[in-house]
């Protein structure tokens, strides 16, 4: 919890919500003498308390300069190259709308748009995205200015716990761009477009986003409704 590169957060910027309380709890746990493994660190930094060489991970790493362009805002950063785009968004830029699910590219909770194209932010390094426009769920819309697709997710009850929802929404926006471009999917009868936003097509094209609450029928309904109105 003592990453020197992480900007210290002030109460003015972020009122102490659930996230801050959870972090405070975790810090107390450490102070109480619990021997937490290094992987409890939210960023992949070497444990600072141990001398270099004591742990195989502890090795001096040259920081790399990168400018992340997120939701129209540029952030000049100096990062440990091991930092995934997902961790840079969540831990460095405090854009915690993008979620960490499996952290291995299997669940889609970390889906963001890279120049409009959907990718898994957990399977790419932040330093690989110098000055490339990135859109996260915060850039799609917020409580005061919901994106139409977000409203459709609410209207169709397209989530229960909501953890996969930012990824589902970013993925759906990228997916509809792919559909509009005429790209086929595994279930398309023909390889050349155009292809309809049928339920079968949407299910296949959204298969990179898992929902443990299994809100799939309502997610498909929300996207279908949005795609019909947007067309």
């Amino acid at each position, binding site marked *: 919890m003592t990453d020197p590169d992480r900007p210290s957060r002030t109460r003015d910027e972020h009122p102490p919500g659930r996230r801050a309380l959870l972090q405070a709890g975790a810090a107390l746990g450490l102070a109480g003498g619990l021997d937490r493994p290094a992987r409890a660190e939210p960023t992949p930094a070497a444990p600072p308390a141990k001398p270099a060489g004591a742990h195989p991970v502890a090795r001096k790493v040259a920081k790399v300069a990168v400018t992340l362009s997120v939701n129209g805002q540029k952030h000049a950063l100096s990062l440990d190259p091991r930092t995934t785009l997902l961790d840079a968004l969540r831990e460095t830029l405090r854009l915690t709308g993008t979620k960490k699910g499996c*952290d291995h590219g299997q669940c889609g909770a970390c889906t963001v748009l*890279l120049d409009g194209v*959907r*990718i898994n932010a957990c399977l790419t*390094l932040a330093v*690989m995205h110098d000055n490339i426009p990135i859109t996260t769920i915060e850039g799609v819309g917020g409580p005061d200015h919901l994106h139409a697709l977000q409203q459709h997710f609410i209207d169709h009850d397209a989530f229960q716990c909501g953890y996969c929802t930012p990824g589902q929404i970013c*993925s759906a926006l990228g997916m509809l761009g792919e559909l509009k471009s005429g790209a086929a999917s595994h279930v*398309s009868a023909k*390889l050349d477009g155009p292809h309809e936003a049928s339920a079968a097509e949407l299910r296949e094209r959204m298969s990179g986003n898992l929902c443990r609450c299994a809100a799939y029928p309502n997610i498909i309904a929300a996207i279908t409704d949005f795609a019909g109105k947007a067309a």
Partner: protein
Amino acid sequence: MRAFDYQRARKPEDALSANAARYIAGGTNLLDLMKLEIERPERLVDLNALALDRIEDLPDGRLRIGALVRNATLAAHPLVVARYPVLSRALLAGASPQLRNRATTGGNLLQRTRCPYFYDPAQNCNKRDPGAGCSARGGLTRNLGILGISEACLATHPSDMAVAMRALDAVVETRLPGAPGETLGRSIPIAQFHLLPGSTPQIETILQPGELITAVVLPQPLDGAQRYRKVRDRASYAFALVSVAVTLKMKQQSVARVSLALGGVAPKPWRIEEAESRLVGQQLSDDALKTFCDALLSGAQGSATGNAADPHRLDNANDFKIPLARRMMIATLRDAAKEA
């Protein structure tokens, strides 16, 4: 993840001069393995700024695909859709849309096996730790190989793309580290690109250290029909249990030309050209197809269900792949013949 030095390559020479480096392009498999510390590169060279992201329609009718072309871009490219539909279909059957948007042509060829014992550092694996032994024997073999495997390793190559490229006789173009200003490159037929494990399963391709894939070239388009069929445990987003890539040209009810490669069964796309030659001139009769399938599956060894305590467990056997591959080859060839 272990620490590494990171460098961005602006031109191929930057990459080729980086000693002992690993290249990163899409990173969708490499970073996954680095998080598990199965891959531990000292230095990572980022190739994404290299101008290897083009698809060129060559004057002689071949198609050159830059190594950095993303899987999604390749699958949707009009020339691939029109001339090499088996490749589009194979790509679309692989991974998830997010991964296909990131994964590259070169990286797809170089992805590592998804053998669960390779992925689990608590297990013995000759590929991960040469000489350690293979915990997969007698274990969960459902996604492991039946052909081309060895005492040391049962792993399969997980790519769908490579199976289609094998049926299409693709050629991998590379550059090798050399003296400044010197251009050293070679063209590797995809049949020779991936190696069988033998006693050295850690060596998976013919590439030399530092050798850089620059492109994959597809030969002139073939007339006739092309098919890719994949059977897996889920309808989407799963690796193949068995897949089949076919190109077929019929003439007066007989085979004029055929190529067929199997995926999901071997450490490399599995194809036997001699069997194809023997099928030419014949009708797709039950006997001719049986002879053809026998040749492809010659030497196939599957493991039978070995867990008597848990007979409903389905992942501890792979002998079902032998009849499955046979049925898929026959069904896919007969389906292709309707349009070939």
